[in-house]
C-alpha cells in the first residue's frame, strides 16, 4: 500500500516536473517563434502591428533579399574562418595552459595562475582602445588575424581546463611516467582523451561567441569586403529599421543564427554532457 502511494507520489512529482518543463520550454520558445513569424511578414504590415505568431500575410521576401546580396557568402566565409580559427586557438591554448597549471611545477605557478584568474575580472571594453591602437600600429586591421588574435587568450577556458585536469586521477599519469612518457605524450595520450566533453563544451561556446561577436569586428574590419556576417547584415539595414524594416531585421537575425542552431543540433549531446559535467563539479 505504502509502496503504491510512494509510486503515486513519485508519478505526481514527475508529472509536475514534466508540465513545468514544458511550460518553461514554451515560454523560452515564444520570443524565438515571434522572431521567426515577424521575419516572414512584410515590413509594411509590421509597421502597423507586430503581434501574432502566425505570419499572415506571408512572405519570403526578407530572406530572398539577404540571399540575393552578392557579399553575403563572403561575410559568411569570414565569420566561419574567424570562428573556426578562434575555436582551434582557444582549445589549444586553454588545454595546454590548463594542463600546465594543473599538473606541472614551474616557478611562479601560483602567481601566474592568480594573474590569469584576475583576467576574468577585466571587462572587455576596458581593453578595447589599447587593443585597437596596438593592432593599428601593427597594420593588422581588416585582416583575419586582427579578428582572431585578441580573443584567443580566454581565462575562463584555462580555468575550466585546469579544474578538469586536476580531477583526472593521478594514477593514470604515474603509470605513463613509469613508462618514461614525455609530458607532451602524457598530455596527448592520457589527459586529452577524457577531456573531450570539456573541450567540446569550451569549443562550442567559443565558436558561438566568435560567430556572434559584433563590437570588435565593427571597428577592426572597417572594409565591407572584410565584414563578418553580424556586421555585414547590420550594415544593410536602413535607418529606423526597427520600425520600417522590422521583417528584414528579424530575417537577418534568423539567418545569422542558423549556423549556430545547426551546430547545436549536431553537438547537442556534447553540450548537455559538458554542462552536466560542469554542474557535477
Amino acid at each position, binding site marked *: 500500500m505504502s509502496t503504491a502511494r510512494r509510486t503515486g507520489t513519485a508519478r505526481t512529482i514527475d508529472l509536475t516536473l514534466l508540465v513545468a518543463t514544458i511550460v518553461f520550454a514554451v515560454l523560452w520558445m515564444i520570443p524565438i517563434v515571434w522572431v521567426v513569424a515577424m521575419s516572414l511578414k512584410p515590413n509594411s504590415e509590421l509597421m502597423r502591428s507586430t503581434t501574432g505568431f502566425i505570419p499572415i500575410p506571408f512572405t519570403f521576401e526578407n530572406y530572398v533579399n539577404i540571399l540575393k546580396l552578392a557579399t553575403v557568402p563572403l561575410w559568411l566565409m569570414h565569420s566561419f574562418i574567424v570562428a573556426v580559427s578562434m575555436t582551434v586557438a582557444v582549445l589549444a591554448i586553454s588545454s595546454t595552459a590548463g594542463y600546465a597549471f594543473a599538473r606541472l611545477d614551474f616557478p611562479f605557478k601560483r602567481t601566474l595562475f592568480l594573474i590569469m584568474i584576475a583576467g576574468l575580472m577585466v571587462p572587455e571594453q576596458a581593453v578595447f582602445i589599447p587593443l585597437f591602437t596596438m593592432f593599428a600600429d601593427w597594420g593588422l586591421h581588416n585582416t583575419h588575424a586582427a579578428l582572431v588574435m585578441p580573443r584567443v587568450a580566454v581565462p575562463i577556458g584555462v580555468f575550466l581546463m585546469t579544474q578538469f585536469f586536476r580531477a583526472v586521477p593521478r594514477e593514470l599519469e604515474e603509470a605513463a611516467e613509469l613508462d618514461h612518457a614525455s609530458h607532451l605524450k602524457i598530455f596527448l595520450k592520457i589527459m586529452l582523451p577524457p577531456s573531450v566533453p570539456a573541450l567540446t563544451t569550451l569549443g562550442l561556446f567559443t565558436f558561438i561567441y566568435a560567430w556572434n561577436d559584433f563590437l570588435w569586428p565593427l571597428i577592426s574590419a572597417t*572594409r565591407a569586403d572584410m565584414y563578418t556576417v553580424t556586421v555585414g547584415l547590420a550594415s544593410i539595414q*536602413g535607418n529606423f529599421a526597427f520600425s520600417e524594416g522590422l521583417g528584414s531585421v528579424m530575417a537577418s537575425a534568423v539567418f545569422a543564427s542558423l549556423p549556430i542552431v545547426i551546430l547545436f543540433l549536431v553537438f547537442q549531446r556534447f553540450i548537455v554532457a559538458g554542462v552536466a559535467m560542469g554542474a557535477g563539479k
Partner: protein
Amino acid sequence: MQHFKFLTRMALATALAGSFASAASAADVNFLRFFGDCQTEYGTVTDVSKANGECGIITVLTNKFNAENKIGAKVITQTAEWGAFYDQLTATYSTGNIPDVAVMHASVMANFAERDLLTPLADGFKKAGIDTADFVPAALKNAMSKDTLYALPYDLHALLFHVNMDLMTQAGLVNSDGSVKLPSSPEEFISMGKQFKEKTGKYFIASESQSAEGMMVRLWESFMWQQGVDVLSADGKTATINSPEALKAAGLIKSIYGEGLANTALDYPGAEQAFLNGEAGILINGTWGVDNYNAQAASGKAALKNYKVANVPTIFGKSKVWADSHMWVMPKDDKRTPEEVDAALAFMKFLNDNNFQWSRTGHLSVRTSVIGSPEFAALPHRGEYAATAENATALPPVQNQRGVFNAMITDFNAMWLTGAAPADVLTAMQDSVDQILSRNR
C-alpha cells in the same frame, strides 16, 4: 549542384570584394554611408524617378553618377549600420580605409571638425560650382564649424506634428478651411488635448516616450527656442538648462502625460503603430516618417485614412523647431590624390544638383531654389510643412552633442516614467550636461 552554385557565388563575391579592395583607380570615390543597402532592388537602376526611400534614392543617384559622369569617376559605396556608424567612421582613420565622401549629421560634425578630421570645402565647392548662397541659413549654419565650411548640407530633418484628420474632425479641432486647429499657448495645448480625449476617447498625442530617440527632448528644446533661450551657452561650454523658460517648457510636457493626453508606455515603433492604428490624433515624429505614413494611409490597410502634416505649433511666441541635417563630408586623408579630390567633389556637386530627389524622402530640401520650385510643392504634404525649413533650429555646434542629447533623455524621461518633478529633472539635466561639456577640448 547546390555546392557548385554556392562555390561559384563565393568565388564571385571574393572577386567582387577583391576588386573593391584593390582595384582603386585615381578617380574612385570611396563612399561610406548609412541608409541601408538596396543593391538587390536598385543595383542597376539609374532612373531616379523609380527609386523610393532614403536607401533607394541615394543608391540610384550613385548609380546614375557612375553611369553618366564624364570624368571617369566611380563611386564605390560601403554601407554601415546607422547606430554604430560614427564608431566605424572614426575607426577608419586608424584602419587606413578613410572614405572620400561620408554622410554625417550636423549634430556630430563638431566632434570631427574640431579634431581636424575633416577637409575644409569652401574652395573645393567654388571650384566644383556648388553655390552655397542657395542653401537655407539653418542648413548652411549646420555645415559650418568655427566659420569654416566642412560639409555639403543635404537636408533638414525636423520635428513635425503628423495628424490624423478624421480624429481631429471628430474632436472638433479642424478650422473652417479644412486645416488642423493647433494650440498657440500651453493652456490651449492642454485644453485642446482634453477636448480631443473627451470627444474621441483616444490619446491626443502619440510619442516615443520610453527609449533613446528623445522625441520629447526635441520638443522641449523647440519650446526653449520658442521662448528665445537656448539649452547651451553661446560658446557651448556650459548648459543653461536650469531656467524659468526651461521649467515652463518642461511643465507643459509633464502636463501632457499628467493629464493622460499621451501614453507613457510607447517606444518608437509603438508610437507609430498607435498613430497608424487610429489610437492617437497627433504623432510627434520627424520629417523622415512623412512618406511612410502617407503610403500607409493610402494603402487602405491602416486605420489612419486622412493624413496631414503640420509644423510644430508656436506655443511660446517664436516659431522655432528642432532640426538636424544629413550632410556629406570629406574626411581628411593625407594620401588622397588631387584626382580623387576632384572626383569626390564632382560627386558632391552631382548630389547637390539632385537635391530635389532627396527631398522625396520626406526630408526638407536645403536649397531655396528647390523649396520654391513647383515640383517640390507638388510632392505630397510638403506645402503643409515648408515653413519648418525657416523655423529649423539646432544646438550650438559643440563636441559630444550626441552625449548631451542622450544624457538629457535619461533625465527628462524620468518626469513621466518615475513621476519626478520638472524642477528636479532640470537640475539633474544641468549637472549631467555640464559634466559632458567639461570633457570637451
